[in-house]
Protein backbone atom coordinates (compact mmCIF):
# COMPACT_ATOMS: atom_id res chain seq x y z
CA UNK A 1 0.00 0.00 0.00
CA UNK A 2 2.74 2.42 1.07
CA UNK A 3 4.87 1.44 -1.97
CA UNK A 4 1.83 2.02 -4.26
CA UNK A 5 1.44 5.53 -2.85
CA UNK A 6 5.17 6.18 -3.25
CA UNK A 7 4.95 4.84 -6.81
CA UNK A 8 2.07 7.14 -7.70
CA UNK A 9 3.87 10.07 -6.03
CA UNK A 10 7.02 9.52 -8.11
CA UNK A 11 4.84 9.11 -11.21
CA UNK A 12 3.25 12.47 -10.39
CA UNK A 13 6.70 14.09 -10.11
CA UNK A 14 7.62 12.66 -13.52
CA UNK A 15 4.36 13.94 -14.94
CA UNK A 16 5.21 17.42 -13.61
CA UNK A 17 8.59 17.20 -15.34
CA UNK A 18 6.84 16.21 -18.57
CA UNK A 19 4.44 19.11 -18.14
CA UNK A 20 7.32 21.60 -17.87
CA UNK A 21 8.88 20.00 -20.98
CA UNK A 22 5.55 20.44 -22.75
CA UNK A 23 5.41 24.12 -21.78
CA UNK A 24 9.03 24.54 -22.98
CA UNK A 25 8.15 22.94 -26.33
CA UNK A 26 5.11 25.18 -26.75
CA UNK A 27 7.11 28.33 -25.92
CA UNK A 28 9.99 27.35 -28.22
CA UNK A 29 7.50 26.50 -30.97
CA UNK A 30 5.53 29.74 -30.73
CA UNK A 31 8.67 31.91 -30.52
CA UNK A 32 10.27 30.09 -33.47
CA UNK A 33 7.15 30.52 -35.59
CA UNK A 34 6.71 34.19 -34.63
CA UNK A 35 10.34 35.23 -35.14
CA UNK A 36 10.70 33.40 -38.45
CA UNK A 37 7.42 34.63 -39.87
CA UNK A 38 8.68 38.14 -39.14
CA UNK A 39 12.01 37.38 -40.91
CA UNK A 40 10.22 35.84 -43.89
CA UNK A 41 7.86 38.79 -44.30
CA UNK A 42 10.54 41.46 -43.83
CA UNK A 43 13.25 39.66 -45.88
CA UNK A 44 13.19 42.29 -48.64
CA UNK A 45 13.62 45.23 -46.29
CA UNK A 46 16.38 43.42 -44.38
CA UNK A 47 18.37 42.66 -47.53
CA UNK A 48 17.92 46.24 -48.84
CA UNK A 49 19.08 47.64 -45.49
CA UNK A 50 22.16 45.38 -45.60
CA UNK A 51 22.99 46.58 -49.13
CA UNK A 52 22.47 50.23 -48.09
CA UNK A 53 24.78 49.75 -45.08
CA UNK A 54 27.44 48.25 -47.34
CA UNK A 55 27.11 51.16 -49.78
CA UNK A 56 27.65 53.59 -46.89
CA UNK A 57 30.96 51.90 -46.06
CA UNK A 58 32.10 52.56 -49.65
CA UNK A 59 31.47 49.17 -51.27
CA UNK A 60 30.83 49.54 -55.03
CA UNK A 61 28.53 46.97 -56.66
CA UNK A 62 28.12 45.77 -60.22
CA UNK A 63 24.39 46.60 -60.54
CA UNK A 64 23.51 43.62 -62.75
CA UNK A 65 25.20 41.19 -60.39
CA UNK A 66 23.72 42.96 -57.37
CA UNK A 67 20.19 42.41 -58.68
CA UNK A 68 20.59 38.64 -58.98
CA UNK A 69 22.41 38.48 -55.61
CA UNK A 70 19.63 40.48 -53.95
CA UNK A 71 16.92 38.19 -55.32
CA UNK A 72 18.86 35.11 -54.28
CA UNK A 73 19.43 36.50 -50.76
CA UNK A 74 15.72 37.25 -50.37
CA UNK A 75 14.73 33.78 -51.56
CA UNK A 76 17.26 32.12 -49.26
CA UNK A 77 16.10 34.13 -46.23
CA UNK A 78 12.48 33.29 -46.95
CA UNK A 79 13.28 29.62 -47.56
CA UNK A 80 15.24 29.22 -44.30
CA UNK A 81 12.59 31.19 -42.37
CA UNK A 82 9.79 28.95 -43.63
CA UNK A 83 11.84 25.84 -42.74
CA UNK A 84 12.14 27.18 -39.19
CA UNK A 85 8.41 28.00 -39.11
CA UNK A 86 7.83 24.31 -39.92
CA UNK A 87 10.23 23.35 -37.13
CA UNK A 88 8.24 25.52 -34.71
CA UNK A 89 5.04 23.74 -35.73
CA UNK A 90 6.76 20.37 -35.12
CA UNK A 91 7.69 21.53 -31.59
CA UNK A 92 4.06 22.38 -30.85
CA UNK A 93 2.93 19.00 -32.22
CA UNK A 94 5.54 17.19 -30.08
CA UNK A 95 4.36 19.12 -27.02
CA UNK A 96 0.78 18.09 -27.72
CA UNK A 97 1.64 14.38 -27.88
CA UNK A 98 4.14 14.28 -25.03
CA UNK A 99 1.85 12.25 -22.72
CA UNK A 100 0.96 9.75 -25.45
CA UNK A 101 4.55 8.93 -26.46
CA UNK A 102 6.76 10.56 -23.81
CA UNK A 103 10.17 9.18 -24.86
CA UNK A 104 9.65 9.63 -28.61
CA UNK A 105 8.41 13.23 -28.22
CA UNK A 106 11.06 14.38 -25.75
CA UNK A 107 13.94 12.74 -27.66
CA UNK A 108 12.66 14.19 -30.95
CA UNK A 109 12.35 17.65 -29.36
CA UNK A 110 15.88 17.48 -27.94
CA UNK A 111 17.33 16.28 -31.25
CA UNK A 112 15.50 18.92 -33.30
CA UNK A 113 16.41 21.68 -30.87
CA UNK A 114 20.10 20.71 -31.01
CA UNK A 115 19.86 20.47 -34.79
CA UNK A 116 18.18 23.86 -35.12
CA UNK A 117 20.76 25.46 -32.85
CA UNK A 118 23.67 23.94 -34.80
CA UNK A 119 22.12 24.94 -38.13
CA UNK A 120 21.81 28.51 -36.85
CA UNK A 121 25.45 28.45 -35.70
CA UNK A 122 26.49 27.09 -39.12
CA UNK A 123 24.56 29.81 -40.95
CA UNK A 124 25.72 32.65 -38.70
CA UNK A 125 29.43 31.82 -38.87
CA UNK A 126 29.70 30.35 -42.36
CA UNK A 127 30.01 33.65 -44.12
CA UNK A 128 32.42 35.04 -41.52
CA UNK A 129 35.61 34.17 -39.76
CA UNK A 130 35.74 30.56 -38.49
CA UNK A 131 37.26 31.72 -35.19
CA UNK A 132 33.77 32.83 -34.12
CA UNK A 133 32.57 29.22 -33.98
CA UNK A 134 33.62 28.54 -30.39
CA UNK A 135 32.12 31.88 -29.33
CA UNK A 136 28.85 31.11 -31.11
CA UNK A 137 28.63 27.65 -29.53
CA UNK A 138 29.50 28.85 -26.02
CA UNK A 139 27.15 31.84 -26.02
CA UNK A 140 23.40 31.74 -25.30
CA UNK A 141 22.55 30.79 -21.71
CA UNK A 142 18.84 30.37 -22.57
CA UNK A 143 19.70 27.76 -25.21
CA UNK A 144 21.65 25.74 -22.65
CA UNK A 145 18.84 25.96 -20.10
CA UNK A 146 16.37 24.65 -22.69
CA UNK A 147 18.74 21.80 -23.62
CA UNK A 148 19.16 20.81 -19.94
CA UNK A 149 15.39 21.01 -19.43
CA UNK A 150 14.75 18.76 -22.44
CA UNK A 151 17.47 16.29 -21.37
CA UNK A 152 15.86 16.06 -17.89
CA UNK A 153 12.49 15.58 -19.57
CA UNK A 154 13.92 12.62 -21.55
CA UNK A 155 15.05 11.06 -18.27
CA UNK A 156 11.63 11.60 -16.67
CA UNK A 157 9.89 10.34 -19.82
CA UNK A 158 11.79 7.03 -19.75
CA UNK A 159 10.78 6.40 -16.13
CA UNK A 160 7.21 7.62 -16.74
CA UNK A 161 6.73 5.39 -19.78
CA UNK A 162 8.18 2.35 -18.01
CA UNK A 163 5.93 2.87 -14.99
CA UNK A 164 2.87 3.42 -17.20
CA UNK A 165 3.58 0.19 -19.10
CA UNK A 166 3.96 -1.75 -15.83
CA UNK A 167 0.67 -0.31 -14.57
CA UNK A 168 -1.04 -1.19 -17.86
CA UNK A 169 0.30 -4.77 -17.66
CA UNK A 170 -0.88 -5.09 -14.06
CA UNK A 171 -4.34 -3.86 -15.05
CA UNK A 172 -4.47 -6.38 -17.92
CA UNK A 173 -3.46 -9.16 -15.53
CA UNK A 174 -6.21 -8.11 -13.13
CA UNK A 175 -8.77 -7.95 -15.94
CA UNK A 176 -7.90 -11.49 -17.02
Amino acid at each position, binding site marked *: MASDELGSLSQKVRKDSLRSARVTMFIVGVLTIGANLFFALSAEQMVDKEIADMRKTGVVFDEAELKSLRESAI*RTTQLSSFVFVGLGAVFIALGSFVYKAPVACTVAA*LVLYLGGWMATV*AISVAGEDGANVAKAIMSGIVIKIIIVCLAKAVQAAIAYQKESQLLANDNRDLAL
Partner: protein
Amino acid sequence: MIPPDETPVDPAALPEERASLPCWRCGLRVDPSESRCTHCAARLHPQNDVRDTKPKPDESRQLFVVLGGFFAFLLTSILYGIVANVAGDKQPKAFEDGLVIAVETIDAIILLIVWASCGSARLPIATGRYRLRAWLYAGPILAVYLTVNCLYHDAIREYIHIEWLKLPDPPGLTAMSVATTCVQPAIVEEFFFRYLILGVLRRHCGVHGSVHISAAMFAICHVHVLLSMPYLFAAGVFFGYARAASRSMVLPVSLHFIHNLIVTWWEAES
Protein backbone atom coordinates in the same frame (compact mmCIF):
# COMPACT_ATOMS: atom_id res chain seq x y z
CA MET B 1 30.02 -32.14 -12.43
CA ILE B 2 27.68 -29.55 -13.97
CA PRO B 3 29.23 -26.09 -14.35
CA PRO B 4 27.33 -23.43 -12.36
CA ASP B 5 26.05 -21.71 -15.53
CA GLU B 6 24.41 -24.86 -16.81
CA THR B 7 22.55 -25.81 -13.64
CA PRO B 8 18.96 -26.51 -14.69
CA VAL B 9 16.47 -24.03 -13.25
CA ASP B 10 13.52 -25.53 -11.44
CA PRO B 11 10.65 -23.02 -11.84
CA ALA B 12 8.98 -24.33 -8.69
CA ALA B 13 12.03 -23.40 -6.62
CA LEU B 14 11.97 -19.80 -7.86
CA PRO B 15 10.03 -16.93 -6.31
CA GLU B 16 6.61 -16.36 -7.88
CA GLU B 17 7.62 -13.57 -10.26
CA ARG B 18 10.57 -15.62 -11.61
CA ALA B 19 8.66 -18.92 -11.84
CA SER B 20 6.30 -17.39 -14.41
CA LEU B 21 8.03 -15.67 -17.29
CA PRO B 22 6.70 -12.96 -19.64
CA CYS B 23 5.48 -14.02 -23.06
CA TRP B 24 7.59 -12.57 -25.89
CA ARG B 25 4.45 -11.37 -27.68
CA CYS B 26 1.84 -10.18 -25.17
CA GLY B 27 4.17 -9.59 -22.22
CA LEU B 28 1.86 -11.40 -19.79
CA ARG B 29 3.35 -13.97 -17.44
CA VAL B 30 3.14 -17.65 -18.39
CA ASP B 31 4.34 -20.92 -16.94
CA PRO B 32 7.71 -21.70 -18.63
CA SER B 33 6.75 -25.36 -18.97
CA GLU B 34 3.91 -24.45 -21.38
CA SER B 35 4.63 -24.74 -25.10
CA ARG B 36 2.18 -21.94 -25.97
CA CYS B 37 1.22 -18.73 -24.16
CA THR B 38 -1.98 -19.28 -22.18
CA HIS B 39 -3.12 -15.69 -22.91
CA CYS B 40 -2.38 -15.09 -26.59
CA ALA B 41 -1.52 -18.62 -27.78
CA ALA B 42 1.86 -17.51 -29.14
CA ARG B 43 4.30 -20.39 -29.58
CA LEU B 44 6.90 -19.98 -26.85
CA HIS B 45 10.44 -20.00 -28.13
CA PRO B 46 12.96 -22.19 -26.35
CA GLN B 47 14.93 -19.00 -25.65
CA ASN B 48 11.91 -17.29 -24.06
CA ASP B 49 13.25 -17.93 -20.59
CA VAL B 50 16.90 -17.31 -21.58
CA ARG B 51 16.00 -13.83 -22.85
CA ASP B 52 14.28 -12.98 -19.60
CA THR B 53 17.01 -14.20 -17.27
CA LYS B 54 19.85 -12.45 -19.15
CA PRO B 55 20.99 -9.28 -17.40
CA LYS B 56 19.35 -6.43 -19.33
CA PRO B 57 21.47 -3.35 -20.16
CA ASP B 58 20.44 -0.09 -18.53
CA GLU B 59 18.15 1.24 -21.28
CA SER B 60 18.10 4.78 -19.94
CA ARG B 61 21.91 4.94 -19.89
CA GLN B 62 22.07 3.48 -23.40
CA LEU B 63 19.78 6.20 -24.69
CA PHE B 64 21.92 8.95 -23.19
CA VAL B 65 25.11 7.33 -24.55
CA VAL B 66 23.72 7.36 -28.12
CA LEU B 67 22.48 10.93 -27.67
CA GLY B 68 26.00 11.90 -26.55
CA GLY B 69 27.41 10.15 -29.62
CA PHE B 70 24.94 12.04 -31.80
CA PHE B 71 26.08 15.35 -30.31
CA ALA B 72 29.73 14.41 -30.95
CA PHE B 73 28.88 13.54 -34.59
CA LEU B 74 27.07 16.86 -34.91
CA LEU B 75 30.01 18.86 -33.55
CA THR B 76 32.41 17.05 -35.89
CA SER B 77 30.15 17.81 -38.83
CA ILE B 78 29.80 21.52 -38.05
CA LEU B 79 33.54 21.93 -37.41
CA TYR B 80 34.27 20.16 -40.71
CA GLY B 81 31.89 22.48 -42.55
CA ILE B 82 33.44 25.58 -41.02
CA VAL B 83 37.07 24.50 -41.56
CA ALA B 84 36.26 23.62 -45.19
CA ASN B 85 34.51 26.97 -45.64
CA VAL B 86 37.34 28.99 -44.07
CA ALA B 87 39.99 27.14 -46.08
CA GLY B 88 37.98 27.80 -49.27
CA ASP B 89 39.22 26.76 -52.68
CA LYS B 90 42.75 28.07 -52.10
CA GLN B 91 43.96 24.92 -50.37
CA PRO B 92 45.60 22.09 -52.33
CA LYS B 93 43.75 18.82 -53.00
CA ALA B 94 45.93 17.04 -50.42
CA PHE B 95 44.58 19.35 -47.70
CA GLU B 96 40.96 18.57 -48.63
CA ASP B 97 41.68 14.83 -48.66
CA GLY B 98 43.49 15.04 -45.33
CA LEU B 99 40.57 16.93 -43.79
CA VAL B 100 38.04 14.36 -45.02
CA ILE B 101 40.18 11.47 -43.75
CA ALA B 102 40.59 13.17 -40.34
CA VAL B 103 36.83 13.75 -39.99
CA GLU B 104 35.97 10.22 -41.02
CA THR B 105 38.53 8.79 -38.61
CA ILE B 106 36.98 10.84 -35.79
CA ASP B 107 33.51 9.59 -36.77
CA ALA B 108 34.73 5.98 -36.73
CA ILE B 109 36.28 6.51 -33.28
CA ILE B 110 33.03 8.02 -31.96
CA LEU B 111 31.13 5.01 -33.33
CA LEU B 112 33.48 2.55 -31.61
CA ILE B 113 33.34 4.42 -28.27
CA VAL B 114 29.54 4.63 -28.33
CA TRP B 115 29.22 0.96 -29.34
CA ALA B 116 31.61 -0.14 -26.59
CA SER B 117 29.71 1.86 -23.95
CA CYS B 118 26.28 0.95 -25.23
CA GLY B 119 26.57 -2.75 -26.06
CA SER B 120 24.17 -4.65 -28.27
CA ALA B 121 21.26 -2.83 -29.92
CA ARG B 122 19.64 -5.71 -31.76
CA LEU B 123 16.05 -5.58 -32.93
CA PRO B 124 13.50 -8.31 -32.09
CA ILE B 125 13.59 -11.56 -34.08
CA ALA B 126 12.58 -11.20 -37.75
CA THR B 127 9.85 -12.98 -39.58
CA GLY B 128 10.81 -14.45 -42.97
CA ARG B 129 7.94 -12.66 -44.71
CA TYR B 130 9.14 -9.14 -43.92
CA ARG B 131 12.78 -10.00 -44.61
CA LEU B 132 12.00 -11.26 -48.13
CA ARG B 133 9.74 -8.27 -48.88
CA ALA B 134 12.43 -5.85 -47.70
CA TRP B 135 14.99 -7.32 -50.11
CA LEU B 136 12.47 -7.47 -52.99
CA TYR B 137 11.25 -3.88 -52.68
CA ALA B 138 14.58 -2.25 -51.80
CA GLY B 139 15.92 -2.10 -55.40
CA PRO B 140 12.95 -0.30 -57.04
CA ILE B 141 12.61 2.11 -54.09
CA LEU B 142 16.34 2.90 -54.31
CA ALA B 143 15.90 3.76 -58.01
CA VAL B 144 13.07 6.18 -57.11
CA TYR B 145 15.22 7.77 -54.40
CA LEU B 146 18.16 8.23 -56.78
CA THR B 147 15.91 9.99 -59.30
CA VAL B 148 14.50 12.27 -56.59
CA ASN B 149 18.05 12.97 -55.38
CA CYS B 150 19.22 14.11 -58.83
CA LEU B 151 16.12 16.25 -59.43
CA TYR B 152 16.24 17.80 -55.97
CA HIS B 153 19.93 18.73 -56.14
CA ASP B 154 19.61 20.08 -59.69
CA ALA B 155 16.73 22.28 -58.52
CA ILE B 156 18.73 23.50 -55.51
CA ARG B 157 21.78 24.32 -57.67
CA GLU B 158 19.50 26.30 -59.99
CA TYR B 159 17.71 28.11 -57.17
CA ILE B 160 20.49 29.09 -54.74
CA HIS B 161 23.32 31.35 -55.85
CA ILE B 162 24.85 32.34 -52.51
CA GLU B 163 28.46 31.19 -52.48
CA TRP B 164 28.74 29.86 -48.91
CA LEU B 165 25.39 28.08 -49.11
CA LYS B 166 26.22 26.29 -52.35
CA LEU B 167 26.50 22.53 -52.44
CA PRO B 168 30.11 21.30 -52.50
CA ASP B 169 31.59 20.40 -55.86
CA PRO B 170 31.36 16.71 -56.77
CA PRO B 171 34.61 14.89 -55.89
CA GLY B 172 34.76 12.76 -59.09
CA LEU B 173 35.05 8.99 -59.25
CA THR B 174 38.45 8.05 -57.81
CA ALA B 175 39.60 5.38 -55.36
CA MET B 176 39.82 8.06 -52.67
CA SER B 177 36.29 9.37 -53.29
CA VAL B 178 34.86 5.84 -53.34
CA ALA B 179 36.54 5.11 -50.01
CA THR B 180 35.49 8.38 -48.34
CA THR B 181 32.02 8.93 -49.80
CA CYS B 182 30.82 5.38 -50.39
CA VAL B 183 32.57 2.81 -48.18
CA GLN B 184 33.13 4.77 -44.96
CA PRO B 185 29.64 6.39 -44.71
CA ALA B 186 27.95 3.12 -45.62
CA ILE B 187 29.65 1.36 -42.72
CA VAL B 188 30.10 4.03 -40.03
CA GLU B 189 26.85 5.96 -40.56
CA GLU B 190 24.73 2.84 -40.95
CA PHE B 191 26.14 1.22 -37.83
CA PHE B 192 25.74 4.44 -35.84
CA PHE B 193 22.31 5.58 -37.01
CA ARG B 194 20.63 2.35 -38.04
CA TYR B 195 22.20 -0.15 -35.65
CA LEU B 196 22.88 1.80 -32.45
CA ILE B 197 20.42 4.69 -32.51
CA LEU B 198 17.52 2.82 -34.15
CA GLY B 199 18.12 -0.25 -31.99
CA VAL B 200 18.23 1.73 -28.74
CA LEU B 201 15.25 3.94 -29.65
CA ARG B 202 13.23 0.86 -30.62
CA ARG B 203 13.28 -0.18 -26.95
CA HIS B 204 11.40 3.00 -26.03
CA CYS B 205 9.32 3.86 -29.13
CA GLY B 206 7.43 2.11 -31.90
CA VAL B 207 9.03 1.21 -35.24
CA HIS B 208 7.79 4.33 -37.05
CA GLY B 209 8.83 6.68 -34.25
CA SER B 210 12.32 5.23 -33.95
CA VAL B 211 12.86 5.16 -37.73
CA HIS B 212 11.81 8.82 -38.11
CA ILE B 213 13.82 10.08 -35.11
CA SER B 214 16.95 8.23 -36.27
CA ALA B 215 16.42 9.65 -39.78
CA ALA B 216 16.14 13.17 -38.34
CA MET B 217 19.39 12.62 -36.43
CA PHE B 218 21.04 11.35 -39.63
CA ALA B 219 19.94 14.46 -41.54
CA ILE B 220 20.96 16.86 -38.75
CA CYS B 221 24.45 15.32 -38.59
CA HIS B 222 24.91 16.47 -42.21
CA VAL B 223 24.54 20.10 -41.14
CA HIS B 224 27.63 21.00 -43.26
CA VAL B 225 25.45 20.40 -46.34
CA LEU B 226 22.41 22.33 -45.09
CA LEU B 227 20.48 22.21 -48.34
CA SER B 228 20.71 18.43 -48.65
CA MET B 229 19.14 17.85 -45.24
CA PRO B 230 15.51 17.33 -46.41
CA TYR B 231 16.62 14.68 -48.91
CA LEU B 232 18.91 13.07 -46.31
CA PHE B 233 15.96 12.81 -43.92
CA ALA B 234 13.97 10.95 -46.57
CA ALA B 235 16.97 8.69 -47.31
CA GLY B 236 17.35 8.02 -43.57
CA VAL B 237 13.71 6.92 -43.38
CA PHE B 238 14.28 4.51 -46.28
CA PHE B 239 17.45 2.98 -44.77
CA GLY B 240 15.73 2.82 -41.37
CA TYR B 241 12.79 0.84 -42.71
CA ALA B 242 15.21 -1.40 -44.65
CA ARG B 243 16.95 -2.17 -41.35
CA ALA B 244 13.71 -2.63 -39.40
CA ALA B 245 12.07 -4.87 -41.98
CA SER B 246 15.12 -7.01 -42.75
CA ARG B 247 16.39 -7.01 -39.11
CA SER B 248 19.84 -7.11 -40.63
CA MET B 249 22.55 -4.56 -41.28
CA VAL B 250 23.51 -6.09 -44.64
CA LEU B 251 20.59 -4.48 -46.51
CA PRO B 252 20.95 -0.85 -45.28
CA VAL B 253 24.76 -0.94 -45.61
CA SER B 254 24.50 -2.27 -49.20
CA LEU B 255 21.78 0.25 -50.12
CA HIS B 256 23.76 3.17 -48.68
CA PHE B 257 26.91 2.04 -50.51
CA ILE B 258 25.12 1.58 -53.86
CA HIS B 259 23.27 4.90 -53.42
CA ASN B 260 26.44 6.89 -52.76
CA LEU B 261 28.38 5.08 -55.51
CA ILE B 262 25.73 5.86 -58.13
CA VAL B 263 25.47 9.51 -57.00
CA THR B 264 29.28 9.92 -57.09
CA TRP B 265 29.46 8.32 -60.55
CA TRP B 266 26.51 10.38 -61.85
CA GLU B 267 28.00 13.68 -60.63
CA ALA B 268 31.44 12.79 -62.07
CA GLU B 269 29.83 11.99 -65.44
CA SER B 270 27.67 15.11 -65.58
